[in-house]
């Protein structure tokens, strides 16, 4: 049982239990996997890598589609 980690999600800092994968995080946040995309530390994180474990200090951008012109 490791120490909690602090990561930044969409600009907000959050402290979370570890270990935790991206997919687990999405489940926790009740976000649907299929309509969103994720950037991890400024780089695109493909869906194929959602099993990856989050590390302390990681910065995530989780985006989806909204109305626009």
């Amino acid at each position: 049982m490791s120490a909690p980690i602090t990561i930044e999600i969409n600009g907000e800092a959050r402290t979370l239990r570890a270990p935790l994968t991206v997919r687990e995080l999405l489940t926790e946040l009740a976000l649907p996997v299929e309509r969103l995309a994720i950037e991890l530390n400024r780089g695109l994180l493909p869906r194929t890598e959602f099993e990856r474990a989050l590390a302390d200090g990681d910065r995530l951008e989780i985006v989806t589609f909204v109305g626009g012109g």
Partner: protein
Amino acid sequence: MSRRDPSPESALSDEPLRIGRHEFRSRLLLGTGKYPSHDVMRACHEAAATECVTVAVRRVDLSGREKSLLDWIDRGRITLLPNTAGCFTVEDALRTARLGREAGLSELVKLEVLADPGTLLPDPVATLEATRQLVKEGFVVLAYCSDDPILARHLEQAGAAAVMPLGSPIGSGQGINNPRNIRLIKDSLRVPVLVDAGVGTPSDVTLAFELGIDGVLLNSAIALARDPVRMAAAMHHAALAGRHGFLAGRIAVTEHGRASSPESGKIAAATR
């Protein structure tokens, strides 16, 4: 011509708009922003018979309270076109495009790299650079740009699948400020040319198509109209009017009048 008269339908035969591997029967592309409600938006998409709508890429609502825009879009009939709206640097545009592809599983992107929040005008240099990079990465790029005809050529040479010159600034409703440039662009490019931004009225759309261009993308003109759904239907007709007016070949403009009724066979003139 035979005595079997062509119906309006056959009179309106046209080839589809082709962008990358996509084909659209409707040449009107709409946005998804600024509508009074998602219901009105969907009704507008139907009334305009659009087959492609742009969507913006933004941070997900972590509260999970927001309903997803996509629930109001019939993915069966309508193709999503992720855009990079609101990006002011090449890097942000690239990141946004990549996120959009990942979220939408589509290689289509409407590329916007704007110069500043004040004018919202596209940056020609940054747009050209971002187009080159996104094409390298396999994107099908629809490049939003000014109406500079030579810039449009550079974008085509950079691999843009479609070039989207503005009629006037985004949301300004000024219409087509320089029709000659739009025609020049259309006449010198092989890829589809779509007029994007600035359209305010159906006659703006009709005029744009009469210049020969392949499509029009608009958002505010419908979403912010007093009656958005009626305006959407009007824009649908405006696109057909302009497109077929172009294909039908207009009459020449003459300085003086030309009678529509026969000069001969008049009754003997009254002696004045």
